């Protein structure tokens, strides 16, 4: 399968300056302080994961970084020419709105059928193009959302709990897909999650948030940090890295076992396998 040749454009990321640069961002709603002097940098081709307990302000931080909310203090700088592909947490569409997947994908920008199909194929669901969106399962919807985020040729993918409502097998697939796409296109990824094990394995940088930044660093560093262990006392450190070991097969969306060559994901497993891309080597 020709990876990245059709579905996503490979943008050489030679500019090492951060895609997003949030400095000392604070957010207050009413008299409640939701974010307290948070600084975050998202670098090109890097997977940054924001983790934190419920109510830690993860989604609020995402909203500020996306420009949906104005911070009370501090500022968010975006690199010029930044194109964000946003995948929201959940998408529920009223059954009374007749909407096919094809129509959903082209709500903002029109695109030829072949291009849509190519994107759906990249995320593994080409058969859904003409289905009503309401008929999709949780995992299928996440893939369609990912395809839509990619249509805009983003250099930054922003994902809010990308595996919510997806079963455990599907979760691994979604994260691997995101990682593959990162390797192919060289886009940066910003992800918010509380699924520690699945997410941290593929991350380059982990930001542990609880109103303020408790600790940050590479996954191994964060998982050993006392602040992290205090926030997640039950987190099993040994479990981290579960998606770093090599698979000789994958389970597809329907739970069937496929060889890795079937979907091309053998090319890259986990972040360690595409280090050369991170230094700015375009895929083709």
């Amino acid at each position, binding site marked *: 399968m020709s990876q990245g040749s059709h579905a996503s454009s490979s943008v050489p990321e030679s500019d090492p300056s951060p895609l997003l640069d949030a400095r000392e961002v604070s957010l207050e709603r009413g008299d409640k302080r939701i974010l307290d002097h948070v600084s975050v940098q998202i670098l090109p081709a890097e997977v940054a994961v924001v983790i934190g307990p419920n109510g830690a302000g993860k989604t609020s931080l995402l909203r500020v970084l996306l420009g949906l909310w104005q911070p009370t203090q501090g500022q968010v700088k975006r690199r010029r020419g930044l194109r964000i592909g946003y995948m929201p947490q959940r998408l529920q569409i009223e059954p*009374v*709105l007749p*909407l*096919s997947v094809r129509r959903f994908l082209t*709500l*903002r920008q029109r695109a030829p059928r072949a291009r849509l199909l190519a994107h759906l194929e990249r995320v593994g669901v080409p058969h859904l193009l003409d289905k009503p969106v309401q008929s999709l399962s949780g995992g299928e919807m996440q893939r369609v959302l990912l395809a839509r985020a990619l249509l805009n040729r983003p250099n930054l993918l922003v994902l809010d709990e990308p595996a919510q409502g997806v079963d455990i097998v599907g979760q691994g697939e979604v994260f691997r897909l995101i990682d593959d796409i990162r390797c192919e296109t060289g886009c940066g990824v910003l992800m918010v999650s509380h699924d520690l094990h699945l997410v941290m394995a593929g991350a380059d940088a982990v930001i542990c948030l609880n109103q303020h930044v408790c600790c940050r660093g590479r996954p191994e560093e964060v998982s050993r940090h006392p602040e992290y262990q205090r926030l997640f006392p039950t987190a099993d450190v040994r479990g981290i890295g579960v998606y770093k070991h090599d698979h000789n097969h994958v389970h597809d969306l329907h739970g069937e076992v496929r060889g890795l060559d079937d979907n091309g994901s053998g090319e890259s497993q986990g972040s360690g396998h595409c280090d050369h891309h991170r230094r700015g080597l375009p895929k083709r």
Partner: protein
Amino acid sequence: MIEAWLDDFLFRAVLAGLMVAVVAGPLGAFVVWRRMAYFGDTISHSALLGVALGFLLGLNLNLMVTIVCVAIAMLLVILQRRQELASDTLLGILAHSALSLGIVAVAFIEGLRVDLMAYLFGDILAVGTSDLVAIAIGGAVALLLLVLLWRPLLALTVHEELAQVEGVPVVLVRLGLMLLIALVIAAAMQVVGVLLITALMIIPAASARRFASTPEQMAILAAVVGMLAVGAGLWGSLLFDTPTGPTIVVAAMLGFILVHLFPGRLIPRFGDR
């Protein structure tokens, strides 16, 4: 020729009804998709206040109704932001207060005998040529606005934040939708009256859902269904000598029931194109 027709009160009524249905149907689709039925009801209840103010200030009634409706809609949005009361409570308070305030205000105007029933339930048979012009202008502006706002409005309806990230000017589009609703209410007031306007918006749209597989189909079908209801209602009101506005709504309701009595698989659906 046209002049001769315009002299006929029935022709004017049919024309006014059809023009209103053409806009109310597609807009009704949005009201249904965005779960704004009660919102629409609240805004239309406040139209009577606009009528009273129009009489009081000696201004054009349609213009005044549009202004008051937009004002009430904005007030509602501001109050909803504060989140002290649940949305439906706020809507209930505003809907009934605005209606009562309107009726009281009309009663205060000296030397004016207003046929309240005509405003509450519509008086389509009394539509004059100047009313027809007002409806045509309001309807045309609303239709144009709807066409211009269609794609961003649809994106907003599907997922507001996603739309905002993708560059939809959310606040502007929402304001546009409110203006749209206000314009349609002003135009529809004479046809079905302030109490029944929402029915003319949502019943045709709800009926159209069964045949549609794209948003556009649903909107266009809603317009067609609305026009059929207006035609059938007018005819029925002449036949049975019943009030026209409510008869139109009854016709729309019968259509809705008929559509839903049929098993789904027997209903032809338009293709997704």
